[in-house]
């Protein structure tokens, strides 16, 4: 399991990422676009994720991932229970979410090391 502190430590290394407190909830943004946010009790993390891939993600591990609230369904967004992910997976989710909201040229520096 990971906590918001683990996410914060990782997100702070990502270029252009800033932290904000909006309505008592911690959010990480690039400019004005939010790519990670937490529930008030900090047990659930929302993150940017392509909405067309969402059903495959949730239908693969429904105990870990959840649909966003009805008002957020039209966005590229998914929820995850922090108790169900480890550090490695959290990093992958946060990194991919960040990558969706920064310019390609910035994201290029942060690709995982080439295997293909």
């Amino acid at each position, binding site marked *: 399991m990971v906590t918001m502190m683990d996410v914060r430590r990782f997100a702070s290394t990502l270029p252009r990422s800033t932290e904000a407190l909006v309505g008592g909830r911690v959010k990480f943004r690039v400019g004005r676009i939010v790519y990670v946010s937490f529930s008030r009790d900090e047990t659930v993390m929302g993150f940017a994720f392509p909405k067309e891939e969402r059903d*495959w993600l949730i239908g693969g591990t429904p105990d870990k991932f959840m649909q966003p609230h009805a008002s957020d369904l039209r966005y590229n967004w998914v929820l995850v229970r922090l108790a169900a992910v480890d550090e490695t997976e959290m990093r992958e989710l946060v990194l991919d979410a960040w990558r969706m909201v920064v310019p390609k040229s910035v994201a290029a520096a942060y690709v*995982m090391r080439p295997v293909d």
Partner: protein
Amino acid sequence: MSPTDTVDMVREQWATEFPDLDTRALGITHRVTALATRLNRDAEAVFGQLGISGATFDVLAALYAAGPPYQLSPTQLYKGRLVSSGGMTARLDLAEDAGLVARSRAEHDRRGVTVTLSDRGVRVVRAGVGAWLAYERNLRSVLTAHEREAFPPLLTRLLHSSFDQLPADEVPDTKSLIYSWVRAFPDQDPWLLHLLGAIPLLASRVEHESAKVVRSWSLTPNGFGLLCALRRSGPAFRLAPSELYDVVVLSPAGVAGLLYKMERAGLIVRSNDPEDKRLNRASLTRRGLKVVNSTIGDFVMRHEWLLKPLAETEREALTTLLRQLLSSVEHRRDETPGAH
């Protein structure tokens, strides 16, 4: 009795579905790529603890391996490192912002730029290598002293075997790449450095050839690997996404992205698990089935070709050693690298 790993399972399944298919090459090639992916994931997490990505570490390590004054041109940095020059520029921007490298105009050539590792960069790269090798040190104890001794020359043979098929100007100088690391970090275990340096190079070579085989279907090696897993599961060619995570060595999010692409390409369809409606299952379409059936033969032949210069005894020894390493790495997945 040696331990079993995912690749043993994969080969058993192929043997059931296609009894005439000779998949022995996968015993080496598939293990190399699976090992590389898992080691790479671990490395990302270890470097992440130091606030850098694996991509940044690669840049720092290359500069460090050049020796004092730790300077290279951007061209020297990206050549043979499987990164585009644009990707390298972005990496350098990031490393420079973090104060790990500095760029300056070369004295003798006003157009040329030199990249120099900063003092902080030197500290970070040393700490990174130390943490990474400490995390992977158990790989040593997976093998007996005798096996450990036999392994590096076999890896070198495998590197030569797989790279010698390339045109000369495309062959990276793998030997000097690995030995520059071993020289640069004299206080670190050379055996482990050799292993951790060689596996990603070999994996990129295997993936490169796999990509050529599956390109005609507009597939990536990962996408083809996913279709193969469905094909191997036997009629109805249907699996739950969670059954694919380990086989294609991707996170749930990575597999979801891949499944979506395959679905759009008409190669798979989604259905619900009748027992638990919340769960999805993926099944091969007729077209997906055709893609695998018509390509798998070429795919394993291409891998066989990469190993052609190796003697039978060398192949057997490599298969055994790689199986031990992969099975060990697969079984430790519950620990989180770099956790404190």
